[in-house]
């Protein structure tokens, strides 16, 4: 071991780094120090610039200005390849594994030290052995698409260890894990740090940061607003640094009593893309003016449940009722007409037409009727007038007439989408992770919109992985695990711990 690799010495240093995307600053004048053998937490709200900073470290983005030093010498990464060569690797929030290749092939992909020929057998043996030694067991012959999300994360970490990375960046690794899986990950992180590696742990969850890290750096609005040793930091101080003000939970008026059941789901069964039963007999009711939260780690049938309720996928069994109307097996248009509004998870993938103008997107569900259409003809002026009205009313910023909606920021996209949905005056609002990836201000705006619907007497179904979001909005919570409901908790009794156990399948219900 050389002197530079001694524990506690600087592994990586960033000096005054700037990075902007299309004129929007994601990182501004950020300086950052990472020591050997430490778990260093990067704390910050969504949109604070954590992911951008990590992507710069990992060579995916190039900084617009500033310096980066590895082991004390300046580096200029042109691609992740250069970062790997310097011993830095990253596990992204959205995994970067090739689904159709095997685990072993994914480990070998892009590895600089492999020969021309690939010995699949030897590779598999090495992969299995590596997994064992870090408490990350995997089947090296499995194709990545066959693995669970937690297993895929293990492959990502092994990919870095297989390349002998000295610096591992984990971008919100616990977001896709149950609290129990998270604990196992923390053990692996400590083991890696004890070996003299450095781990950057990105999170916006204070308790996790407090538990696992040695030091914390807090980012806010793209800037570094301070770094401390974790042991010296009070959670409340960290929270204030992160948010820039004292946290304010949205005020949720106590329900004045709920109305009759509006959304009724009976023994619903829905198939996945691969034809397996992803929703396996689900029952629940949502009453008018009630928010029912469905918690669960993603990939447990939430997507199929939503599709089955809004008509995007014909259920394989069971019933969906809106009030007294049975809408099972009818098409999407019928669901819309019966008063079902839907906020999908990926805004630009489904829900908005990215290349069409904001006006067009705001009329995407109402365009069939007057004033937007007269017979087969479109009334363009109605689109414009209504668009202007909603843009003002819902405070949608950055819109320019005629420009495609994809140019709006995430928060404004979501406001536009929800504005359109609630303007239909729905009886039922189904929303999936509506605040995912939004900054603090937009999160608040979106939550308030959802709560306003609740007050209006809409039956709201909130499907989310984010416990904060669920606890802030729901009147009642159920947990979904492997396509079934495994437990129900009223909002007052709900704790992250109890939910966590249920989400991991340790329920008291069926399953």
């Amino acid at each position, binding site marked *: 071991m050389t002197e530079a690799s001694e524990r506690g010495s600087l592994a990586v240093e960033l000096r005054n780094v700037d990075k*902007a995307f*299309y*004129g*929007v600053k994601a990182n501004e004048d950020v300086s950052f120090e990472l020591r050997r053998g430490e778990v260093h937490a990067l704390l910050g709200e969504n949109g604070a610039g954590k992911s951008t900073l990590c992507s710069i470290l990992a060579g995916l983005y190039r900084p*617009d200005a500033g310096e980066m030093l590895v082991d004390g010498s300046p580096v*200029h990464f042109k691609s992740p390849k250069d970062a790997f060569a310097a011993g830095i690797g990253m596990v992204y929030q959205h995994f970067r594994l090739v689904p159709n290749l095997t685990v072993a092939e994914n480990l070998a992909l892009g590895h600089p030290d492999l020969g021309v020929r690939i010995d699949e057998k030897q590779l598999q043996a090495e992969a299995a052995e590596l997994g064992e030694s870090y408490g990350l067991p995997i089947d090296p012959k499995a194709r990545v698409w066959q693995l669970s999300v937690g297993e895929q994360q293990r492959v990502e970490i092994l990919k870095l260890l297989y390349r002998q990375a000295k610096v591992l960046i984990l971008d919100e690794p616990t977001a896709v894990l149950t609290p129990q899986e998270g604990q196992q990950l923390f053990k692996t992180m400590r083991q890696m740090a004890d070996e003299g590696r450095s781990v950057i742990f990105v999170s916006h969850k204070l308790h996790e940061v407090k538990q696992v890290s040695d030091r914390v750096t807090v980012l806010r609005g793209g800037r570094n607003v301070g770094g401390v040793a974790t042991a010296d930091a009070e959670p409340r101080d960290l929270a204030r640094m992160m948010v820039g003000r004292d946290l304010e939970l949205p005020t949720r008026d106590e329900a004045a009593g709920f109305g009759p059941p509006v959304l009724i789901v009976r023994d619903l069964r829905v198939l996945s893309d691969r034809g397996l039963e992803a929703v396996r007999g689900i029952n629940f009711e949502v009453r008018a003016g009630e928010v029912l939260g469905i918690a669960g780690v993603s990939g447990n049938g939430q997507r199929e449940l939503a599709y089955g309720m*809004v*008509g*995007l996928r014909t259920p394989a069994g069971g019933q969906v009722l809106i009030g007294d109307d049975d809408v099972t097996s009818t*098409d*999407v*248009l019928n*669901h*819309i007409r019966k008063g079902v509004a*839907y906020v*999908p998870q990926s805004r630009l*993938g*489904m*829900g*908005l*037409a*990215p*290349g*069409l103008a904001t006006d*067009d997107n705001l009329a*995407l*569900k109402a*365009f*069939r009727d007057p004033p937007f*259409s007269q017979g*087969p*003809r*479109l009334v*363009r002026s109605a689109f414009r007038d209504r668009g202007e009205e909603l843009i003002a009313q819902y405070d949608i*910023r*950055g*819109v*320019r007439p*005629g*420009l*495609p909606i994809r*140019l*709006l*920021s*995430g*928060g*404004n996209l979501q406001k536009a989408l929800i504005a359109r949905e609630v303007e239909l005056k729905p009886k039922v609002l189904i929303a999936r992770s509506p605040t995912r990836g939004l*900054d603090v*201000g*937009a999160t608040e705006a979106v939550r308030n919109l959802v709560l306003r619907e609740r007050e209006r007497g809409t039956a709201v179904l909130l499907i989310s992985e984010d416990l904060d979001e669920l606890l802030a909005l729901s009147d009642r919570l159920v947990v979904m695990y492997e396509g079934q409901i495994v437990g129900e908790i009223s909002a007052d009794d709900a704790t992250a711990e109890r939910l966590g156990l249920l989400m991991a399948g340790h329920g008291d219900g069926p399953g």
Partner: protein
Amino acid sequence: MTARRLIVEPRGLASIQLTLLIPLLAVFAALIVGGVFLALTGDNPFSVYRHMVDTAFGSSRGLSETLISATPLILTGLAAAVAFKMLVWNIGAEGQFLLGAIFSSGMAIAMGDGAPAVVVVPVVVIAGGIGGALWASISAIPRVYLGVNEIITTLMLNFIALNLMNYLIFGSSSPWRDPAVSTFPSGRPIPDSGRLPEFFNRLDIGFIIAAVLALVAWFLIGKTRWGFEVQVVGDSPDTARYAGIGVPRKILGVFLLSGLFAGLAGGLYVAGPVGALDPRSLDLGLGFTGIIVAALARLNPVAVIPVGILMGALNNSGPSLQSIGVPPEIVIMLQGAILIFAVGGEFFIANRLRRPEKAPAGVAGLEAA
């Protein structure tokens, strides 16, 4: 740091000037490439181009011939434009054009001279459109209901259509074949009542029909509910499904409309200037040229008209080049080059390049929320 690379940024909406300028530059760049090849093979590019312009536009006869050449190109251009806009890759306009020609000539021959032209002409023309749409349906139905990629099926159907036409004229004694000529097989001339009336030299009303159809297509896509649904499907099929739009039927409709336009091109061409199912006059690659027209017109149905005339001018001037000793294939080469530069130009319409030093403020409506 050494010279920093240019930063590529998507543009929100390109200015009208730019969307006009870039296609013009594409044509200009193609002319330069063609000029280089002409010069290398010993011709003076300026005199060759001069000759081409004179042929295409220098006389009223030349102008009318240019518009005659433009008529099918406007329609095959529309066929490509409406399809590509919706990411339906119908590259079978060639075959649909030939089927249109077969249907139209067949209908005209079947109806004979018995009925007046006012009745026969519309029937003949519409038959062509139906022929094209039917031929397109062979690819469209598997695409929509089975997910079979249409690129290869439409392409292969081009060659099947070509052989079908050859069979009707060269390989059989079908009603399309002229029984009067026994030396070399050729198409039976269609009766006069099935021919399109001419009004400017040899130019017939087909040109007007094509131009009107371009305007109709523009209205249909931009100003109707159906067109709005088509635009949503073209932009994001998942979002369209989400909004309750029947995606398969929209794709099918657009595909058949595309085939209809290509078929009408063939119908108008046999009922107009050609006057018979004549393989030598019909196997000209007019379907493929339509793709160039659509690309250079940036899939805008109205812009298809002037671009169609430009390509018609090139097609019209090609054969005359032989008189000055230049291979007429220079025209195909120029058209190919125009397409290359036109697609390349799309990059500059969609993106802007800037130096990394200074960030422009508030680019393209992006603001932090």
